[in-house]
């Protein structure tokens, strides 16, 4: 993650950093769940005072843009929806595939399989979930 | 590692003095085979020969110069070389710096005083084919040390006072001369014979120092104690000065 700090600017360095982090999040370069460099690491990389990084992270945490996880550092706030959803969907798709394969092996056509599913869902008695 | 630093800063002077004194001592003893007894004084006792070569006035001056040179160094010298801020920033008191230098210097002086004191009795039978009593050489070493610590302390004090490598050294070397000039001018020989350093170092206070140049009286403890007190006072002064200085 490369940030550029302009020391001759009249904008405080920590504000420059918060702006650049926000920009990175807005453009998707940094995504929810992504970890940001540790305070010491980023300070050494940018060659700025650790306080600059601390202030930037604090401000963004205060705004809810970052979340500080104790012991792990700073992370971009917000869940990663895509990952969680896609896993479930993928699993469901696999199970569906297995069922459809078996039905086809038993000689059912696609239309018949579709009618079976519709019937099951339409006339489904509310069964308690296992 | 302050001891190491004090040692390194005085090592050259010390080792040169050790080498010079050792080589000289052995050389004299070797030469005694042919030079002793001298043709113009065939009845000269060996002890008198040893006195002339090792404890006479000239040698006492030489030892005094060595003592003065060993007392040089310290923070003012470091100021000239630029390392004073580094030394002063160490978490040690200035007193500790002073004490370490004094201890190392005095130990070095003792070693140099003991060199002939040990070499002469040990090697005389072997090299010069005559015996020389240990008690004599050790007593003369003690007499040398008594003024030696005063010379050391004087140079130490000048080093605390003057900046730079050479000013202190020059002041140190000139001090014995200055002292002797005053001594002579006040007719010290007649009034305070004990206050002549070279007389005392050469055993001249011993009224029974006859032709054999052997010490027969006990050492002049009072005079020696006075010298120890004077040396201590000078070193104390150097310490106070060092503690109060601005660098």
């Amino acid at each position: 993650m490369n940030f550029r700090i302009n020391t001759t600017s009249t904008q405080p360095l920590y504000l420059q950093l918060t702006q650049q982090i926000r920009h990175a999040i807005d453009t998707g370069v940094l995504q929810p769940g992504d970890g940001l460099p540790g305070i010491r690491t980023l300070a050494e990389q940018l060659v700025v005072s650790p306080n600059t990084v601390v202030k930037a992270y604090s401000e963004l945490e205060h705004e809810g843009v970052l979340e500080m996880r104790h012991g792990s550092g700073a992370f971009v706030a917000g869940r990663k929806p895509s990952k969680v959803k896609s896993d479930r969907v993928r699993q469901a798709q696999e199970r569906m595939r297995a069922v459809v394969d078996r039905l086809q092996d038993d000689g059912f056509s696609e239309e018949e399989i579709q009618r079976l599913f519709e019937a099951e869902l339409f006339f489904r008695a509310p069964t308690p979930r296992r | 590692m302050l001891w190491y630093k004090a040692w390194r800063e005085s090592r050259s002077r010390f080792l040169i003095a050790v080498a010079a004194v050792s080589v000289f001592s052995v050389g004299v003893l070797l030469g005694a085979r042919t030079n002793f007894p001298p043709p113009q004084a065939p009845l000269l006792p060996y002890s008198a020969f040893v006195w002339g070569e090792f404890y006479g006035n000239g040698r006492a001056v030489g030892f005094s110069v060595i003592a003065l040179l060993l007392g040089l160094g310290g923070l003012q010298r470091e100021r000239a070389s630029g390392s004073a801020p580094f030394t002063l920033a160490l978490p040690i008191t200035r007193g500790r710096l002073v004490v370490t230098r004094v201890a190392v210097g005095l130990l070095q002086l003792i070693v140099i005083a003991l060199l002939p004191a040990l070499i002469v009795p040990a090697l005389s039978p072997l090299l010069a084919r005559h015996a020389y009593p240990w008690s004599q050489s050790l007593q003369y070493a003690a007499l040398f040390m008594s003024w030696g610590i005063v010379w050391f302390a004087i140079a130490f004090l000048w080093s605390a006072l003057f900046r730079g490598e050479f000013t202190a050294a020059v002041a140190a070397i000139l001090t014995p001369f200055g002292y002797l000039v005053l001594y002579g001018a006040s007719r010290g020989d007649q009034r305070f014979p004990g206050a002549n350093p070279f007389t005392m170092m050469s055993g001249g206070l011993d009224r029974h120092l006859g032709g054999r140049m052997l010490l027969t009286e006990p050492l002049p403890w009072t005079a020696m104690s006075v010298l120890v007190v004077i040396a201590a006072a000078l070193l104390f002064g150097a310490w106070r000065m060092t503690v109060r200085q601005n660098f």
Partner: protein
Amino acid sequence: MNDSWIIETDALTKRYGAVEAVSTLDLRVGAGRITGFLGRNGAGKSSTIKMLLGMSHPTSGTGRVLGHRIDDARANREARRHVAYVAEDKQTYAYMTVRQMIAFTRSFYDDWRPDVEARLLRQYELPIHRKVKALSKGMRTKLALLLALARRPRLLILDEPSEGLDPVSIEQLLQSLVAAAADETAVFFSSHQIAEVERIADHVCMLDRGRLVLDASLDAIRQDFRLLEIGFAHEPPRVDWPATDVGSIRTTGRQVRILAKCNVDAMIERAYGAGAVSVETSAVSLREVFLDQATEQA
């Protein structure tokens, strides 16, 4: 005196003959930050640092480093156990080798860090068997830096640390200072290199002719300090600007230039209220603030 100050002085004064090198200085350096110490040559920076480290004795006034009084030899010695110092001269013992200097220095401190020592030896490429007198100026500087940085002191004082270093080495030095600050070492360094101070310092103290003329955070300087150019159509009137808000006031003809430290809007209003016909505001860089304060008449 407040316990949270790493360095604090109280009317600290140093006189050399008729000259007051340091004049009733009330310096406050906070823990947990990097403080730049600015000033022209002869402004009193080195004199101040010497007094803080017990190298010279104050003429009057007092001070504390890490809570220990500077004018008490034993207290100051105690403070020095937790202070690392790089002098302007960066001279160590000419007759020792690099390795011997490291061993020597190491023997005095409990907070030595062998891992940092090894890393810096590699990074600086110091020849461990070479005597200090045979080192180039740059190498001598790096050795002096290593001897201070291979520790974990509570306070790191550096006097012109980047002098004599090439740009790559300067970058490494600044990184080391940042790393030290991340390790909870308070950093106090004097420098003529405004750019370096602008980069890593959180706070800046500036001396001019022995007095403290600036004591501000870099954020405040960037965000709040403003240069006001106030134009009048007549002789500028006398206005009592609050002393704490103003860094300097200069009047030339019908123009008044004010370096304002805060409450700029109120000042602008006041200027107009006093009959100003134009007020121009501009931000100031640290360099401009330095030049402004350095030439300010006492």
